[in-house]
């Protein structure tokens, strides 16, 4: 996509052209937010807000730069505002671990790079490559939001078995994503 040309059309009043920009960048913005949010369900709300703000500030955008990192930085700013309102201050081990985790995630997924977006794009392909029973387990837990208790009852498995299976499946997905990403980089 010729981003500069599309942005020029948007600044000329073509809102539908902005939709093309959003489609181009939505996975990277959503992924950038998702890895940082404890409440992943807020991802789309905040992403929408970020794209709306980016539209309103489009005149300030330097067309010589990439649109993606700019709108991701707006999204992170929106997310920080959201968290300031929503997230209670806490004490104790859980909150300390949470803060350490936030710092590690920030380090692993800097906004100026699209690492999380690349993972999200490869994720759907890696899911399709999984064997059906494994994919079904992932779908139950993450797409249908079933609890571990519900999954163990429906599959007739022990709680610890379900927990460890999910852990191994996540590792398998991660290996697939890393392999595909390195193949893309090499090519």
């Amino acid at each position, binding site marked *: 996509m010729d981003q500069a040309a599309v942005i020029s059309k948007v600044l000329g009043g073509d809102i539908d052209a902005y939709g093309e920009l959003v489609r181009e960048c939505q996975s990277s913005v959503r992924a950038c937010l998702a890895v940082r949010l404890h409440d992943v*369900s807020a991802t789309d709300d905040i992403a929408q807000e970020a794209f709306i703000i980016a539209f309103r500030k489009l005149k300030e955008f330097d067309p010589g730069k990439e649109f993606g990192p700019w709108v991701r930085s707006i999204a992170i700013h929106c997310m920080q505002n959201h968290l300031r309102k929503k997230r209670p201050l806490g004490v104790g081990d859980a909150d300390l671990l949470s803060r350490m985790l936030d710092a590690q995630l920030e380090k692993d997924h800097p906004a100026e790079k699209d690492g999380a977006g690349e993972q999200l794009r490869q994720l759907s392909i890696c899911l399709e490559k999984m064997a059906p029973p494994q994919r079904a387990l992932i779908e139950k837990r993450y797409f249908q939001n079933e609890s571990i208790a519900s999954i163990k009852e429906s599959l007739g498995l022990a709680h610890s078995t379900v927990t460890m299976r999910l852990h191994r499946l996540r590792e398998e997905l991660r290996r697939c994503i890393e392999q595909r990403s390195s193949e893309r980089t090499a090519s």
Partner: protein
Amino acid sequence: MNNEQASLIARQLAGESMAAELLEQCRRDPAVLEELARHVALERLLKAGAGAPMLAEEVVARLKYEQTGRPFAEAVTNRLRAMAGRRTSVPRWLAAAATLALLLGFGWLALRPHWIGHPTFARIVSIESVPCLDATPLAVDTRVGTRPIRIGPGFVQLRFDHGTLLLVEGPARFSLRNGKEVRLEYGRAVATVPLAGHGFRIESPAAEIIDLGTRFGVEVRPDGETEVHVLQGKVLVRGQWELRATELGGAEAVRVNSREKLHETVAADTDRFLTELPEPELDRPARYLHWPFDEGGGGVCRAIGVGMDGAAGTGRLQPGLKRDGGEADHGPDWVPGVLGSALFFDGQGDHVETGFPGIAGAAQRTVAFWVKAMPNEPLGFAALGWGTFSPGNVWQISLNPWAHEGTLGGLRLGIQPGEAVGRKNLCDGRWHHVAVVMYPGSETGEANLQTHTLLYVDGELEPTSRKSFQRIQTLTDTQTATPLMIGRSADSLHTPTFRGFIDELYVVDKALRREEIRRLMAGSIL
């Protein structure tokens, strides 16, 4: 990474609380934190990736709306100011706007079938005054799946396929996990669960509530603190950190706070929950009386009756008493109104007496009209009312005159004692459209001010600063009952009377929806 560390990470992501152990491991070995972060990131991407986002379409639609839309009330009042005479048909601009809104709504649903979920578990059966927060319209009969729903002040009622009725009161954010599980991030909900739905669960940030055959209410605050009040039957309640659930019976309540690991008994307050929203009576036309006050002069104002006797609604303008006890020489004044002419009541006893007895008992009703009152002027006790002046037996609408009962100048429904008072002060010298809606009583015929009434101002659901718990049983056939009076209270002419302007009064025998109230506001017929 050894097996113990892997197991800790797996259990933490499964929802068990392993924070202390993991912290210890992270301190010993930074690779544990890195591995945990990789698992957490992937898990979050899996959750975010579920379903196909239609983000671009939502953004474009919202931007287009911002460019072309304007607040509904402003559009209505601008239009009404420009109207030269009475219209009895739907104004063309309103019909065009409604058609466009309908087409956009259908277009939305066509563009995003994923929003209704795939699979779906429930159907929206009633909606009341819910502003669209997600750029995704809610509509009756829409099927609902797993996508989160966020609503502003108002109500959405869903019926699950197995029969459970879930009434959600906004502001709220919730999602259906499957056919028997709901995640309520914040807001209020009441679940009425039939036998087929036993085991129905509501999960909040702080607690999990499992039905054992019951009706129960849940309130989740924005910080996640959760209260559970059992209206009927039993539930199990478990704090998210607890391994065991505790049983809660009828008229029992608990508060659960997972940050502070608190799970404590509180006083049951089942009256704070609206338990059911009637499904739209699409096949039942409203019957009503309408006073347009367009005579412009004379001592009589006539009512137009649709399904009701208009002659009974004929109003005679009555003067008040002078301060020296003598009779004033005229009653309410004819003045320019929102549409045509209106009446001004001087607060010195001016009123209109009709022969209309009013709507009786716990029967559903809507009273809607335009009102204007000036700032810093004394307020009387009733803009209009009817019934018998005894507890719960009178029906009076006013602008609140008592600061200790709520916002001064707020829209007020009083049933003496007992009142519902809106939060917005309407005494600002401008016309406001107000509506008071009462839903039908329960199966036993009882209706309560707190749970069966809604107030609207300028077409929007009005939050209330005060809503008493008081049974409504309007008595219109006693010896001391007064028929509809406009400008004075039902008890006595000698109490302060209403000072202000009233136009386009409707008394309807049905609980109107927001859309119908907005049609009245726009000068259309029902």
